């Protein structure tokens, strides 16, 4: 019997059911393998269908926040929650990382956690950035340069890894207590390709 099934035209689509739902289609394909039948449901959702409900599975605002500060087991929780919940749910995780892993004092850790929650990339539209790669543009510039910082995050000249590391392990915010000199930079200072000063800005693919 196993042989017979295996000899069937490979991984055949045993059943295809299409159900109309607006212009969307749902295709149910039963894939036969020697020992099992796997049912695969494929939805095709029409552009502009306002009746379909989508369920959030990934979220990102600031670079590195969920990746670095939030424990791996909490990542699903983080990804399905919203910025308005961050202060209550994740500020302690961030502060805990800064005290527990980096060994910094609690007051400093709380200041870092406060700057990163809610997890949104902040842009100050009244500030003059100075162009796509302008000096006032960049991650956390609204914290590091309150008078002029545009905030946001630029493609070039914005080493967010080093900025994050120097906040966590160094004295970027003026705290010299228990800094870790070997952890304030990853020694990778720039992207492997230059970006464009014109739309769509991001370097062409490799």
């Amino acid at each position: 019997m196993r042989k017979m099934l295996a000899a069937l035209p490979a991984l055949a689509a045993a059943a295809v059911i299409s159900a109309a739902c607006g212009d969307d289609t749902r295709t149910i394909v039963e894939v036969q393998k020697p020992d099992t039948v796997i049912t695969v449901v494929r939805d095709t959702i029409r552009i502009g269908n306002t009746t379909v409900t989508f369920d959030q599975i990934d979220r990102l605002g600031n670079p590195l926040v969920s990746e670095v500060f939030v424990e791996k087991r909490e990542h699903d929780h983080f990804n399905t929650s919203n910025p308005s919940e961050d202060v209550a749910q994740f500020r302690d995780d961030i502060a805990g990382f800064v005290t527990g892993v980096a060994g910094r004092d609690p007051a400093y850790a709380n200041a870092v956690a406060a700057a990163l929650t809610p997890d949104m990339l902040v842009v100050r539209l009244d500030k003059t950035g100075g162009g796509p790669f302008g000096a006032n543009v960049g991650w956390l510039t609204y914290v590091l340069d309150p008078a002029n910082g545009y905030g946001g995050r630029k493609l070039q000249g914005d080493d967010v890894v080093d900025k994050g590391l120097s906040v966590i392990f160094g004295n970027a915010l003026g705290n010299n207590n228990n800094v870790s000199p070997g952890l304030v930079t990853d020694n990778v200072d720039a992207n492997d390709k230059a970006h464009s000063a014109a739309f769509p800005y991001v370097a062409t693919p490799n």
Partner: protein
Amino acid sequence: MRFPRLTRARLGVSLLAMLAGAGVLAVREGLGSDHQDTPEVELSPRLDINDVYAFPGADESRIVLVMTTQSPITPAGTAAARFDPNALYQIRIDNTGDAVEDLVLQFQFDDVSGGGQRVALFGPVAPTGTGQFSRVAKATPDIVGNINTVLTSGAGATLVQLFAGPRDDPFYIDLDQFFRIVPDRRPSRGPLSQIGPAPEASAFRPKCTNGVINPGQAQFDQTHGCAADFLRTFNAMAIVVELPEALVKGAGNNIGLWATVSR
């Protein structure tokens, strides 16, 4: 940070194997600012958000919003890379300071015959609802057209530009060393998953010139080779929008941005 293990040689071999050819599955083993941060998005890379950028556009009255997804894509796999036609990609904007979205830019994709794909932009528009569950906010896209093409609507003070397609992944990091220091964050599959579980380093790797460690690098890890950008030569699927600031600004001057993917 704590970190992991995997010799440079082993990683090099794995990367060479991936670059040489090939396999789409073999490609999904890296990570960036937020690359592959849960098993679910590791297994569905089209749904994985990597980074968000925001900066001034052609002049100071315009703003550019960028969302990258799906990195790392190898050069060999780039021509075939597509967005998920059944997902809703969004950039959400809070312009009232309560960390709840007031406006959204929504992106949908559909496959067209011949292997192509179209992108549709809806917004900026007030969302149908806020939070975890989303719907497309309007039936007619503001811009629709082929991916890998610069699309526009309006002109002058109303010009909106849209691009969706493969680009270099702009993120850079010495990721393998990062995981040696913080092994908890490593992905669950691929070569980087072999690091840890105990931390294997307590400092980053030194900067080198022609393979020789530069002077003055004593504070860095001397035992795992030289610092290197894990994401060099890898690509991402990027969505780039440039639009007038007036379309996203609220009563105040500040906005908060985040990207989501939903299905």
